[in-house]
């Protein structure tokens, strides 16, 4: 088990290294780094100074070394717009994004798994067909458009929920979040639901496919032959088996929730890092873009690692043999 985690961590470091290389090459070799990293309005003296500071007059290998060194020290450049370190800007906005993504994930799982299992257990029933039709619709609807519809219906038409921004926050056990206040909850509901909808569809599909496959297995029939109540067969025997693929995918999907939050945050003016990156791309604030990319890469690599470890904890076949 320890060996397994160690090996996986090592692999993650390799991927991180490769991705940092790609971002570095993307910034320095594909585009002109002077263009990318220096405020276009700067004068020649300023440009020369930054070129020296960034070591752009040195060989490429040495430049990469400085890039990595700076990145390790948390220095990913300064925002042209805000004049602050890019990393700081992103870290400030990260909790709002994480909160949004987590609430969405929770919504997708809490609704998606029971609906998917139901559709898998009774594939021919009317309700199941409705669920699956809904999931195709949810799968097909572009996130941003659903967001607009939600705002139009719940905010403009009914006037029930606010459509922009994050609500009041409160701190509980050291965690500061807007889900602890009523105002915060009312603000997060629409964007979280918007973001969840797309994932909800895939969780439903996944849970349904898993159920359909597991339900045919002999061990389910054997569990019934033991005289177990149907609820126990579903809750223990079925659920534990479909949770393995579901958890894997959910973990990986969490990353894509963070990525898609760029869209939702823009629609709902949610003050997270997703809105920041879109604004930064729009305003050509490249240091922030580069910093965001590096942060996202780290998040993804970490997520993959966590999912792998979680997977091995869930599946005794992997856990006990130690290696896969």
């Amino acid at each position, binding site marked *: 088990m320890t060996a397994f985690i160690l090996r996986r961590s090592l692999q993650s470091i390799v*991927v991180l290294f*490769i*991705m940092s290389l790609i971002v570095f090459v*993307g*910034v320095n070799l*594909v*585009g002109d780094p002077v263009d990318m990293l220096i405020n276009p309005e700067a004068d020649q003296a300023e440009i020369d100074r930054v070129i020296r500071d960034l070591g752009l007059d040195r060989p490429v290998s040495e430049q990469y070394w400085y890039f990595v060194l700076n990145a390790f020290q948390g220095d990913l450049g300064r925002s042209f717009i805000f004049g602050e370190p890019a990393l700081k800007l992103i870290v400030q906005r990260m909790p709002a994004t994480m909160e949004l993504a987590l609430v969405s994930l929770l919504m997708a799982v809490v609704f998606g798994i029971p609906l998917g299992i139901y559709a898998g257990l009774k594939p021919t029933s009317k309700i199941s067909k409705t669920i699956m039709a809904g999931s*195709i*619709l949810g*799968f*097909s*609807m*572009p*996130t*941003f*458009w659903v967001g*607009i*519809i939600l*705002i*139009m219906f719940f905010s*403009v038409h009914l006037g029930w929920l606010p459509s922009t921004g994050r609500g009041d926050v409160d701190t509980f056990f050291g965690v500061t979040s807007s889900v602890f206040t009523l105002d915060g909850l009312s603000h997060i509901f629409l964007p979280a639901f918007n973001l969840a909808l797309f994932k909800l569809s895939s969780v439903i599909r996944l849970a349904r496919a898993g159920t359909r496959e597991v339900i045919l297995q002999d061990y389910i029939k054997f569990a019934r032959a033991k005289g177990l109540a149907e609820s126990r067969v579903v809750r223990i025997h079925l659920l534990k088996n479909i949770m393995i693929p579901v958890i894997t995918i959910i973990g*990986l999907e969490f*990353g*894509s929730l963070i*990525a*898609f939050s*760029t*869209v939702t945050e*823009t*629609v709902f003016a949610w003050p997270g890092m997703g809105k920041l*990156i*879109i604004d930064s*791309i*729009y305003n050509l604030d*490249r240091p922030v*873009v580069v910093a965001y*990319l590096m942060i*996202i890469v780290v998040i*993804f690599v970490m997520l*993959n690692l966590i999912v792998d470890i979680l997977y091995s904890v869930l599946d005794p076949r992997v856990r006990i043999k130690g290696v896969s």
Partner: protein
Amino acid sequence: MGASANKQSFDLPATGLRKFWLDFSESPTAVIALFVFLTILFIAIFAPWVSPSNPYDLTSVDIMNSRLPPGSEDFSGNFYILGTDGAGRDMLSAIFYGLRVSLGVGALSGLVALILGASIGLSAAYFGGRFETIMMRIVDIQLSFPSILMALIILAAFGKGVEKTIIALILVQWAYYARAARASALVEKNKEYVEAAHCLALGDRRIILSHIAPNCMAPLIVVGTLQTAHAISLEATLSFLGLGLPITEPSLGLLIGNGFEYMYSGDFWISIFPGVALLITIVSINLVGDQLRDMFNPRLQK
């Protein structure tokens, strides 16, 4: 004795297109979806002829007619069934032209990504070795990042524009085709007919293109349908965010984005109708794709 043998009648198995259509029409939903999609395709191709007006002909657009609700008529007697947008353009015409742009960009990027991805996937499976390992590692890494993120990275590096959006969509999609092509080519390359082709001393190129590739088409068509729907949706998202297509090529995404600002004043139609058109397009393609996938999936065959 064999009394029952001659009692049985054998239906000749339907072949080719006929069999394809028989299988496909098993799902009425898919047939309707296909019909809807073909209609949309027709509208997109012939937009200049089927639209009530040319929304981008500045001489026929009057700012005085801006934001007319659906079913309005202007002073010169023009009827706007879906209303007009902020610049006084007929929404229906704008949607028809938008479909043209959205489908065009989706289809073009899908086609190039298919050719690129399939070539890489097929060669990877066929040649194996280090080439395969490296290509598939790249595919794995790329697929572990969400498409929207990949597209944002590319657009952030290259800037916006029609070609750049298409390039971004191709780079986002190729890995899916490469993976699908490799998976089925791995199965095909060990079959006897490929061995036979080897025995005839045919060249690698010929074996890949005329022997293996045709037998890998089914999964690629399925991936292609679903990916095209995805590409259209992604392009709409990017254009909505203002990072995709420029205002000179208004796709559905851009139309929706334009309408977004008017929504709080209750002028819902400017955003809603292009969105409905987009949704119908994507849903119909996805339904067709789902049915194709079920048809080609050997595990679901009776």
